[in-house]
């Protein structure tokens, strides 16, 4: 406190604002070995980084949906504030029901927004990450179209991430209103760099005020040239 500040003033945070984030994560069999290990480490890094930022820890809300087993999209745990988030340890197994996973994510986002509205809590645009190393194994076209529409209607910001050689970029692009141009290609297995970027970006967005055009950090640390 500076010397000439008014004494005995309480300065506490009464802001109620949230930034919802859903991670749809591919843990299908092909992610086995190094990729799933790196993904798990990346999630732990995300947990740490968000907890280290006092504002983001209070404002970012996280939900994880995994894709695996016999075409099963599963919600891991429940929505939680970043300060209460514990990174899960995912095991690689099964197929890639991307369509189902995105459908669940979109429904969860609308439910979460409804809860904010009910409680009079302000929020920034929800973020949806869809990360996969392969082609969807379910009927994904309808949910991709819905996802595109949701992004066009500004209901959500969609970030498709292609892991591996990028052969699935076109399919993942169908989930974004920006098409293939909206897909980021993960360079090698730079999950750590990706999650560092995600956490830095969330710190910026969760603090954003009206009228800000949020400038996200560059993605070169983890993304190769767009495919």
């Amino acid at each position, binding site marked *: 406190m500076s*010397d000439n500040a008014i004494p005995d003033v309480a300065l506490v945070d009464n802001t109620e604002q949230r930034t919802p984030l859903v991670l749809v994560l591919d843990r299908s069999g092909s992610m086995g070995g190094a990729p799933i290990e790196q993904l798990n480490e990346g999630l732990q890094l995300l947990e740490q980084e968000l907890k280290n930022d006092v504002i983001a820890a209070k404002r970012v809300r996280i939900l994880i949906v995994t894709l695996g087993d016999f075409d099963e999209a599963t919600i891991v745990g429940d929505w939680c504030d970043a300060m209460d988030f514990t990174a899960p340890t995912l095991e690689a197994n099964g197929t890639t029901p991307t369509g189902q996973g995105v459908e669940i994510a979109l429904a969860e986002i609308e439910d979460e927004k409804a809860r904010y509205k009910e409680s009079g809590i302000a929020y920034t645009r929800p973020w949806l990450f869809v990360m996969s190393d392969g082609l969807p194994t379910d009927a994904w076209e309808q949910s991709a179209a819905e996802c595109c529409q949701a992004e066009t209607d500004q209901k959500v910001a969609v970030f498709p991430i292609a892991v591996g050689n990028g052969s699935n970029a076109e399919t993942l692009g169908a989930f974004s209103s920006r098409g293939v141009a909206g897909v980021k290609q993960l360079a090698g297995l730079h999950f750590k760099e990706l999650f560092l970027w995600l956490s830095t970006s969330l710190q910026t967005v969760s603090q954003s005020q*009206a*009228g800000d055009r949020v400038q996200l950090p560059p993605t070169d640390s983890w993304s190769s040239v767009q495919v």
Partner: protein
Amino acid sequence: MSWQLFGASAIGASHIAGDLPCQDAHAYRRTESGFVGVVCDGAGSAAYSDIGARLVCAQVVDVLADAITPPETLTAEVARDRVAWALAGARNRLARRAVAESHALKDYACTVVGAWMGAHGGWLFHIGDGLGVARLASGDTVSAPENGEYANETFFLTGRDWTTHLRMTPVESGCESVLLMSDGAMGFVMDKGGRQVYAPFFDPVARFLRSSDETPGNEALQATLADARTHGITGDDKTLLIALAPPA
């Protein structure tokens, strides 16, 4: 006795980190029977919003403070017309400056929250976010922020449809104090939900300012808004204008 007026704008931590200027501004002036005060918050995405904010608050205060009729005697319709006239004048000035400097009007985007008070009440006027509150014995009269669906979207005086977003709130007679603030200050000046002033912040501030002259009072308010503890609450600029009514 007349109103005691204080105001301060402190640059936010993220503005310092991003090498941005303080984009908040405030202005106030005592009138014969009351005062006029305005707080403007320049849009983070607009290149010259700090200039927009400064020009708008200064001009609107000047125009309204020159009015002769006490604001509380005006009908809602007439009061709104007068305020809209003052705002339109400031907006025109921005538009002329934009043309002269080859900028766009939206480069000067800012929100407006103001108070136009006489001896027996008056008006809060508001475009966009930020917050105004008049404190009466019966409770707080609040002019709440208007955001889009998302907390980081709002409306600006420079917008095409600014008149539809101009909101007027009548303030009854017997008001003890008026606070005008930018959204950066809301998190710690207001309580959770933003429906009333957060007493553990404001009571010590009001007590201190009651016994202060204008210049030392403004310096102390400035230092309080710049306190490092606010950096854990907001990265944004923080402006607070406080008007304390003369003892009844």
